[in-house]
């Protein structure tokens, strides 16, 4: 196994963990942050798979803007899932 | 000579133009939308005449398919696009009744809904079909919640969840097909579908079928239908029944016949269609709320169309297309009338609408629409059901035909009950006269239903091309 495979496997595992955290968290703010981390790691994965275009878009939209929008939505409703 | 791309480019142009016009005049935007849909309907009519000669291919960007995108318009696609735009024109007149702000945004969403449904019918490229599916469904989400009340949000939320699952399935199916064949053009896929791995082929078909089944209101995927129809503004309920649903079922037909020419898998489609018919009609019988009843009835009718596609003989598919046309016209009419009745009775319950339709301007079109949906002989809805039945008969699906007839009887029963209540004698004083924005679209739709019911020859001429469609042509 070369370094590339090891790094990508680690990143994929982190992605899966953050996705599960985002789905399971009762605190929606933490879930949103986990989602942002997931987007960031996915964008790194895109970069590693030689798709820089998609990586830039994912980083800007997934990690920054959509997280901000989700946080605004949480702020105008409730923070804790019932 | 009309290029099919104009049917997509001009609505887009007007939709992008309307915010600028909306700064000066909000009223102007509404008339602009009416003009745009009228223009589109005219263009679609001319396109239909052209497509009857031979299928029209419109290459976009100057790259030969499958390098670039191509629009592929056969006679059947052209007539569905024509009906969609015609109904859209009628509904856009009724749109004048919507008063709630922000009206400019509402008009843009409506126009793009029309554009998306037209694009789904016209395109000949699988990924382009997905893009237009997205346009249609996102416009629908916005419009379903437009009333901004609890009902609207509930319906829109259900629609968003189920619709996005459906879109994901479509995308997965496209990915599977592309990974095997390295192409996205429908005819190219059709030519080489045999070289696909059988398991991947089945999975791709199932994904696409489920994905488009959401828009086509197929049985397990239609829980959003009653809530979304009920919560949306009245013109939008009418539009949902005739634009995205018809585009979705046409996409389903494209998947079944143009791309995967399955013959041994179609019993599955018939069973799904039959389940949809039964679910829709029986639940509709129990409904007390007018719009919910119409929504469930719409599910039942869509089930009949899916069944017709599934039976797969020329006659049955002809019937399915006839039923699509009749249902698009009839259900739009009934929803517009329902909007008026709910407005007049100040309630959505059928019992409260006693004698509300006793004004001839509303009563006669309502009667025509209901009879057509029930499948009574002189009106448009008759031929569709009749052809589907005959097609099933020739294939030997006797048990299915019996069940289909039973469901039709249930349908007749609840429509008869509804008609009896709204025409009952009684509180004459409360009956109000509809204004022009209500009765003009009703009369337009009613006249078309009567004309194609009494003189079905033009439609039947177009539907002669069903044979080539089933064989995988445009």
């Amino acid at each position, binding site marked *: 196994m070369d370094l590339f495979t090891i790094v990508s496997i680690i990143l994929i595992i982190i992605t899966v963990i953050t996705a599960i955290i985002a789905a399971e968290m009762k605190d929606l703010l933490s879930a949103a942050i986990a989602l942002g981390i997931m987007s960031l790691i996915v964008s790194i994965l895109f970069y590693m798979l030689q798709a820089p275009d998609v990586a830039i878009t994912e980083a800007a*939209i997934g990690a*920054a803007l959509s997280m901000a929008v989700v946080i605004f939505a949480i702020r105008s409703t409730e923070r804790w899932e019932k | 000579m009309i*290029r099919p791309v104009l049917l997509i480019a001009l609505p887009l142009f007007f939709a992008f133009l309307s915010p600028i016009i909306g700064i000066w005049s909000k009223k102007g935007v509404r008339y602009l939308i009416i003009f745009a849909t009228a223009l589109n309907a005219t263009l679609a009519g001319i396109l239909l005449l052209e497509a009857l000669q031979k299928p029209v291919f419109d290459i976009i*960007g100057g790259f030969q*398919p499958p390098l670039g995108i191509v629009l592929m318009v056969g006679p059947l696609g052209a007539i569905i696009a024509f009906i969609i735009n015609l109904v859209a024109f009628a509904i856009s007149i009724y749109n004048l009744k919507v008063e709630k702000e922000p009206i400019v945004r509402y008009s843009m*969403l409506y126009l793009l809904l029309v554009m998306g449904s037209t694009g789904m019918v016209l395109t000949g490229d699988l990924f382009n079909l997905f893009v237009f599916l997205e346009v249609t469904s996102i*416009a629908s989400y*916005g419009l379903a919640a437009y009333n901004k009340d609890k009902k609207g949000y509930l319906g829109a939320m259900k629609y968003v969840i189920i619709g996005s699952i459906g879109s994901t399935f479509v995308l997965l199916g496209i990915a599977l097909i592309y990974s095997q064949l390295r192409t996205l053009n429908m005819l190219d896929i059709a030519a080489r579908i045999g070289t696909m791995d059988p398991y991947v082929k089945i999975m791709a078909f199932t994904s696409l079928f489920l994905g488009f089944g959401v828009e086509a209101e197929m049985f397990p995927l239609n829980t959003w239908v009653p809530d979304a129809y009920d919560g949306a503004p009245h013109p939008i309920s009418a539009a949902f029944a005739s634009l995205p649903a018809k585009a979705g079922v046409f996409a389903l037909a494209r998947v079944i016949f143009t791309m995967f020419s399955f013959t041994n898998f179609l019993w599955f489609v018939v069973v799904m269609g039959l389940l949809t018919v039964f679910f829709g009609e029986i639940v509709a019988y129990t409904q007390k709320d007018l719009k919910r009843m119409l929504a469930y009835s719409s599910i039942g009718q869509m089930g009949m169309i899916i069944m017709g596609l599934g039976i797969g003989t020329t006659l049955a598919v002809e019937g399915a297309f006839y039923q699509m046309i009749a249902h698009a016209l009839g259900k739009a009419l009934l929803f517009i009338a329902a909007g008026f009745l709910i407005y007049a009775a100040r309630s959505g319950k059928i019992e409260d609408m006693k004698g509300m339709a006793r004004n001839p301007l509303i009563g006669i079109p309502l009667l025509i629409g209901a009879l057509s949906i029930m499948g009574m002989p002189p009106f448009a809805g008759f031929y569709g059901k009749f052809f589907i039945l005959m097609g099933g008969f020739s294939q030997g699906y006797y048990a299915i035909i019996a069940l289909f007839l039973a469901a039709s009887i249930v349908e007749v029963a609840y429509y008869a009950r509804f008609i009896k209540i709204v025409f009952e004698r009684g509180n004459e004083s409360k009956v109000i006269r509809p204004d022009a924005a209500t009765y003009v679209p009703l009369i337009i739709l009613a006249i078309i239903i009567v004309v194609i019911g009494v003189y079905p020859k033009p439609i039947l001429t177009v539907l002669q091309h069903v044979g080539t469609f089933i064989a995988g042509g445009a």
Partner: protein
Amino acid sequence: MKKALAIVLAILIFIVFALAFVKIPFGEKMSTYPHYYNPITNQTSNMSLPQHYLTYGKNDTGATNMVTAIVVDYRGFDTLGEVTVLFLASTGVGSLMYVENKVKKKVRRSNAVVETGSKLLFGFIILFGAYIFIHGHLTPGGGFPGGAVIASAFLLLYLAYPKFHAKHEKLSVSESIAGLTFVIVGLIGLIIAGYFLYNFLPFGLPTYLFSAGVIPLIYVAIGVKVGSELTAIVDSMMGVRE
């Protein structure tokens, strides 16, 4: 019980799709792909579709970035659709979040460091976003990421200045003008060459800024459009406060 059922269902769907997806070739030689077939002229080509894009893409479109060549030129119609999807999303959010007479909550000012810093950064971020979409046909990037970067600059302003408020009319006008540009470029192509979205400008020399015909024009339009749409979404989400 319900949860267990859901997990079982999810695992089942995963397995069924995984069995199909393992059949996707990964890292295979491109020459083994199936050759494409032109349904209009009824001819089978001697190469596969990705091979054609990589071999002739530069000649066909004039763009050095092959992703851009496919996104804006070969499949430009899809991109028009995707831009419309974003437009719809922003319009839908705007119509759902619409409130007459916005009541603004009394908000605390953020501190001086954040205010000055974001004022300084704002211009740089806008510049960076513009760079990304203007150079879309030469380097990785393009209208969508560039627009997102511009919107994130506005997001910074929203966070630093709680009273900041982008004018909705201006946003929607810039959005419409950008969209109109895209459609009009397409229609001009239809008039000149008979193909919607035809690349009617001269290609110029590859790797130069003014090359690849209409691609930079379209990408600038997309960048402006995406930027103003995402800003409008952020603005509508910020606006609902009582």
